[in-house]
């Protein structure tokens, strides 16, 4: 990569931004987020707030939002997660309706720049719509523009449960290679698949999701938006050239699938992004909805099957997310959702996902660490190791394809 290219990516000019906007067509909301990201980049730096500073931001917001006095106590950091900053606290307050409450809540805030440019408003709208159907955190307030907080933030209820078993996890980052053990696997697998089916069958057409674009069924629009999104972010963030990525981009462009049914797509549905009760095996909350959009369900199906978030069982069979054998995963999903798994479309999204995963770890992760824009630089740096697992999956998928 030339020095000039690095400089442009570190400190984007308005011409560079406009060129990328014109070349790659993405959802309007995403265009706004990516444009904002680049426009701010040259002047942005991550300043890690302390707990009291963040707590004061919460108080400032609630002073303008609530009518009655409230009390915020015990602010504390939540660890885990490579993308957002999260603080837990206890709030005693009078809701608009109902009796006074005291509960543990979470502030979820962007760093200066994260692994995914995403919208807290969209996350808030979606969690509100899904409440009661999918176990999700209870959403309370959103600061969509960073009025009270240094960056956009969301406040929601603290969900009980754990992200990985208390024993047997092989790595530091939650979700990569999680070993659940036989008992929990038997309890969690049906829920994991069932909830995904429920999500994809959710009647989003009647839900209040104004910040989401709705791709037309019977066209390749959603696939094109996802491809161009990844290509644009790769162009914005890439740390260096990777010829295999250009081959993948060409292939994806030539083979765009048509959308049969529009579904809410989680975007990062995997082990580590749900909480569960270790005693009962109940999934208590599905988390990390920042990548969600309305599009093709095959995106989630392929994502969950990534080798990095699963592992082989004792017999050498691959377990999707360490929970369910791959050959059973699709059959169980079809039964749970009432929606077919289309092999050609699944294949396309499998290749897109690997393309996007490489973009995330060799592009965005590289850039935000280089510029010191995240509070998790040392964790994000480690993700590079996953890039080549994705690259080999991508390479093999392309090599075995007959559509040349």
């Amino acid at each position: 990569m030339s020095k000039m290219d690095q400089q442009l990516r570190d400190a984007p000019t308005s011409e560079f931004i406009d060129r990328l906007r014109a070349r790659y067509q993405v959802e309007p909301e995403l265009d706004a987020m990516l444009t904002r990201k680049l426009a701010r980049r040259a002047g942005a730096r991550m300043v890690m707030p302390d707990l009291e500073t963040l707590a004061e931001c919460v108080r400032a917001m609630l002073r303008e939002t609530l009518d009655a006095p409230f009390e915020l106590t015990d602010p504390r950091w939540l660890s885990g997660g490579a993308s957002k900053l999260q603080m837990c606290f206890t709030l005693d307050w009078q809701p608009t309706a109902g009796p006074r409450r005291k509960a543990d809540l979470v502030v979820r805030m962007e760093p200066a720049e994260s692994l995914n440019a995403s919208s807290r408003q969209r996350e808030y709208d979606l969690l509100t719509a899904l409440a009661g159907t999918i176990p999700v955190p209870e959403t309370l307030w959103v600061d969509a523009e960073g009025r009270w907080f240094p960056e956009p933030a969301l406040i929601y209820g603290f969900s009980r449960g754990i992200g990985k078993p208390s024993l047997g996890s092989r790595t530091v980052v939650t979700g990569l290679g999680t070993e659940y053990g036989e008992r929990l696997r038997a309890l969690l697998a049906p829920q994991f698949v069932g909830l995904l089916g429920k999500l994809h069958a959710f009647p989003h057409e009647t839900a209040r999701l104004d910040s989401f674009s709705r791709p037309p069924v019977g066209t390749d629009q959603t696939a094109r938006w996802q491809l161009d999104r990844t290509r644009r972010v790769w162009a914005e963030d890439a740390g260096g050239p990777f010829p295999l990525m250009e081959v993948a981009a060409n292939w994806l462009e030539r083979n765009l699938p048509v959308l049969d049914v529009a579904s809410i797509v989680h975007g990062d549905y995997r082990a580590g992004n749900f909480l569960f009760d270790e005693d009962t095996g109940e999934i208590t909350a599905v988390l990390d909805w920042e990548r969600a959009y309305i599009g093709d369900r095959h995106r989630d199906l392929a994502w969950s099957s990534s080798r990095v978030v699963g592992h082989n069982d004792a017999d050498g069979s691959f377990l999707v997310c360490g929970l369910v054998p791959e050959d059973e995963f699709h059959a169980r999903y079809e039964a749970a959702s009432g929606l077919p798994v289309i092999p050609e479309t699944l294949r396309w999204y499998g290749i897109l996902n690997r393309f996007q995963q490489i973009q995330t770890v060799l592009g965005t992760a590289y850039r935000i660490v280089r510029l010191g824009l995240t509070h998790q630089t040392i964790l994000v740096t480690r993700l590079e190791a996953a890039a080549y697992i994705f690259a080999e999956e991508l390479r093999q998928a392309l090599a075995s394809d007959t559509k040349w």
Partner: protein
Amino acid sequence: MVDTTDNGFRAAIQSLREVVLPAVDPTHPMAREQIALVIDWLEFQRLRNPQLADRQRAELAANLRIARAVDALGLALAEADLPVTVARGDALLAAPAATYPELLAAREAVEEALSHAVLLAAALPAEDRAAVEQLVIAGSAPVVALQRAWFLPYGLEADPAAIPSLADALVTAAEEPR
């Protein structure tokens, strides 16, 4: 005369583990987690530091093979400037005194030229485009395998036993297949 690089790594790791980590606020899980990750990263760098130049040399060799093969197709890819980039890379590979930054820059230059060639190939007839892309796909295998062997200590592989040793991966990437 002694080289103290390895000692420096050991010192940094010990300092963090035995002095800094015990002093960190136990109610700050992110701080404790990050110190553990820094220690882990330093241990990894200590392990791999002696072979940084070997890795770049092997990657350069593998990418040069792809670039030569694509250039040999004789297609309309002049804008990618493959012959000049390959010649420079070959000269550097043959120079025993080539430094790590030089090898890194040469490797990136070859990859840049290949990426450009693939972009140009998208506009060629399907058969020609496919020929270029398939050379990149096949030729990338030893490079990707080398990276997986390099990062194996991070423990992210679902089947670590299936990954070649770093020594084998370096040889495979560096040498022309027999």
